[in-house]
C-alpha cells in the first residue's frame, strides 16, 4: 500500500504496487516453499498419478485411440447423465446459497451465545459420518417418513422422495450446507456495519443499501462457498447412491458401475477425465470472473445494477 501525501493538491502519486522484497526476504520465501512439499507429495501420489493412469487407460483400453471418447459422446445415456449431474450440482448449489446466506447473516447479528449455538448446528454435519447422515435421510425421506408426514399434514403430500432427484438434492444440500455457511459468514463478519448506516444516511432505501453495498461485499464468500459445493456435488457418490436410484444416477455412480459391474476401465477412465475437465473448466471460469472483478474493483457493484 502506498501512503500518499496528505498535503492538499499534492501531485498524484504513482499507483500502488507491491515493492520487490529484499534479497534476504526472497530467499526466505523460497525456503518456505519447502513447507508445501509434504502436501505436494501426497497430491502427486494419490491424485496426479491415478489421474494420469486413468487418462492413460481411457486412450489405451480396450484398444489405443479415442474410441472411448467418441463412444461417450455418441451415447445418449452418458450425455444425459453428465447433464443431469451438472443440473443437480447447480440446483444443490443454489439451494445451499439460498439457505446459507440468511443463516450466515443471522449469525452476524445475534449475541455471542446464540452465534455459538448456530455455529454448532452448522458444524454438526462435520462431526458426524457422511454414511450416518445419509442413512438418516433414507429414513426421513421414506414414503411414510417424517418429511412426508409433515408434507401430508400441510396438505402437500405424500410425495415420492426416496429414489428421486428431489430427495437426493435435499439430502445433498444438507450435507453441503457448512461449505457455504462458513465462507459466507466469514465474508460478512468482515463487513463494517457502519457501511450500511452510511448508505442509509446518503439516502439509500434499506433494500438498496443491501443490494448495492452489503451484498457485493459478501459475494466473495458466496463465490467461494458455491464453488466448493458445485465441485463437491459433481463428484458426489455416497448420497446419490443411497438416497437416489440407479435410473437417476449421477456421474460418479455411473463411473462406479463401469468399473465394478461392467469392468470397463476405458469407459470409466474417459468418464473420470470428463468429470475432471468439467470441474477444471468450472474453477477456471470462477477464477476468471473474480479476477476481472478484482481488476476493475467496481465490477461487482456494476454487475448488480
Amino acid at each position: 500500500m502506498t501512503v500518499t501525501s496528505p498535503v492538499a493538491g499534492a501531485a498524484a502519486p504513482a499507483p500502488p504496487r507491491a515493492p520487490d522484497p529484499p534479497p534476504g526476504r526472497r530467499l526466505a520465501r523460497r525456503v518456505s516453499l519447502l513447507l508445501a512439499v509434504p502436501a505436494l507429495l501426497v497430491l502427486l501420489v494419490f491424485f496426479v498419478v491415478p489421474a494420469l493412469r486413468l487418462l492413460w487407460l481411457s486412450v489405451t483400453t480396450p484398444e489405443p485411440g479415442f474410441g472411448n471418447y467418441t463412444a461417450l459422446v455418441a451415447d445418449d445415456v452418458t450425455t444425459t447423465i453428465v447433464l443431469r449431474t451438472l443440473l443437480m450440482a447447480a440446483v444443490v448449489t443454489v439451494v445451499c446459497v439460498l439457505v446459507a446466506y440468511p443463516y450466515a447473516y443471522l449469525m452476524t447479528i445475534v449475541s455471542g451465545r446464540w452465534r455459538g449455538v448456530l455455529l454448532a448446528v452448522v458444524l454438526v454435519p462435520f462431526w458426524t459420518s457422511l454414511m450416518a447422515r445419509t442413512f438418516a435421510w433414507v429414513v426421513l425421506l421414506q414414503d411414510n417418513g417424517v418429511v412426508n408426514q409433515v408434507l401430508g399434514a400441510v396438505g402437500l403430500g405424500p410425495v415420492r422422495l426416496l429414489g428421486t432427484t428431489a430427495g437426493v438434492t435435499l439430502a445433498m444440500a444438507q450435507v453441503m450446507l457448512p461449505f457455504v455457511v462458513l465462507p459466507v459468514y466469514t465474508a460478512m463478519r468482515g463487513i463494517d456495519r457502519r457501511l450500511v448506516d452510511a448508505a442509509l444516511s446518503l439516502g439509500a432505501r434499506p433494500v438498496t443499501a443491501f443490494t448495492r453495498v452489503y451484498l457485493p461485499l459478501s459475494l466473495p464468500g458466496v463465490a467461494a462457498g458455491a464453488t466448493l459445493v458445485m465441485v463437491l456435488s459433481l463428484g458426489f457418490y455416497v448420497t446419490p447412491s443411497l438416497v437416489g436410484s440407479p435410473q437417476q444416477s449421477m456421474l460418479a455412480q455411473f463411473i462406479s458401475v463401469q468399473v465394478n459391474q461392467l469392468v470397463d476401465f476405458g469407459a470409466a477412465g474417459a468418464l473420470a477425465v470428463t468429470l475432471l475437465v468439467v470441474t477444471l473448466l468450472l474453477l477456471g471460469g470462477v477464477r476468471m470472473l473474480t479476477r476481472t472483478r478484482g481488476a476493475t474493483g467496481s465490477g461487482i457493484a456494476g454487475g448488480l445494477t
Partner: protein
Amino acid sequence: MTDRAGATIRAEALTKRFPGASAPAVDAVDLHVAAGEFMTLLGPSGSGKTTTLNMIAGFEEVTSGRILLDDDDIARLPAHRRNLGMVFQSYALFPHMTAAQNVAFPLRQRKVGKAETARRVAEALELVHLGGHGDRLPSQLSGGQQQRVALARAVVFSPRALLLDEPLGALDKKLRESLQLEISRLHSELGITFVFVTHDQEEALALSDRIAVFRDGRIEQVGTPTELYETPASRFVATFLGDSNVFTGTVHGGLLDTGSAQLHCDGPDGPGCLVVRPERLRIGAAPADGANRLSATVSDVVYQGAFRRILVRFDDGSTGLVRDAGDAATTTRGDRVEVSWPAAAGVLVPETAAERVGAGVGSGSGVGVGAGVGVGA
C-alpha cells in the same frame, strides 16, 4: 429544501435506554443547535455522544423525546429520509467503489442526471482537494484522503446539517491538525449546521462555536469554548476542559475553608470547589490586595518553549500546577515559593456527592488539588 443553508436541530428530552442496560445511555438530553452553528458534543468515552448522534441520524431508535429539524419532528423518520450528512470515524467508504463512485452514491439515490452528477462529484472532490483522485479505490488512498472523500460524499447532496462522529479519531496527530483546518474551512464555506462528536478537548476548543459537555448520558454544560474554559459550571467540566487546580472545602461568607487554608472566593455558602486555571497562578510576583496566597515547594519544572509547567506541592501535601510565562524563569526544583492568584481568577463550582467520593483528580487532564496550606492575605 428551504432557501436557508443550515437547519436548526433541537433535541427535547431525548432518551435512549438499551435493552438490559441498568442506566439510560442518553438521559433526557435537551440540546439546541442553531442554524449554521458548529456544535461539538464533548465527553469521555461512554458518555452517550455517539448514541445521541445516532439518534439524530436515525441509526438508533429513540426511546423517548423529540428531535426537531427546523420545525419537523424527525425522531420517527427512517434514516434514509432525513437528508443529513454523516461522517464516521472509520470513514465508512464503500470499498468496492472508487472515490468518485462513492461521492456519486447519494446523487444516484436522488436520481440526479448523469452530467449533473459528474459535475457535482468533481466539484465536491475539488472542495476537499482531491480532484484527480476520483478513480482510486479507498484502499489506494491514505487515511486522511479517505476521510476527505467521506466528507465530500457527505456534503455533495447539499444536506442542511452534517453529523461527524470522531472523524479524526483514527488519524495521527499531524494529519488530525490539517484535517481540523479542513473541516473548519468546510463549515464556513458551506454554511450548514455541524454537529461534531469528539472526546478530544483541544479539538473541541479549536473548532467549535459552542460545546455541549456530556457526562453519563447527560449534558453537563453547554457554552462557547471561552465560557466553558473561563466559567465552568462544575468540577467535571473544569477538569475535562484544560488543566485546573481544584480546592475543595466549605464556603462561609466569601471564604473557602479547605481545612488548612482560607481562600477568597465569590459564591454562596456551603460545600464547594474553587477552580483556578494554571495560567492564573503566579509564583514569586508580589500579590495584589485581596489575593490568595499559598506557600509550596517546587517538585518539577517542565520547559515547553513559550512557557513552563511548574508542578508544586503545597504544604499540606496536595499538588498544584502553575503555567508560567516568564515571571519564575529562575525557579528550579526544590525551591520554596509563594503561589498566589487574584480572588477574581477563581471560579466556585458546586461540589456534588459523587465527586466527593471520587475525591482528588478529576477525569481528563485536570490536576486535582485537595487543599493548600497558607493564609489568605
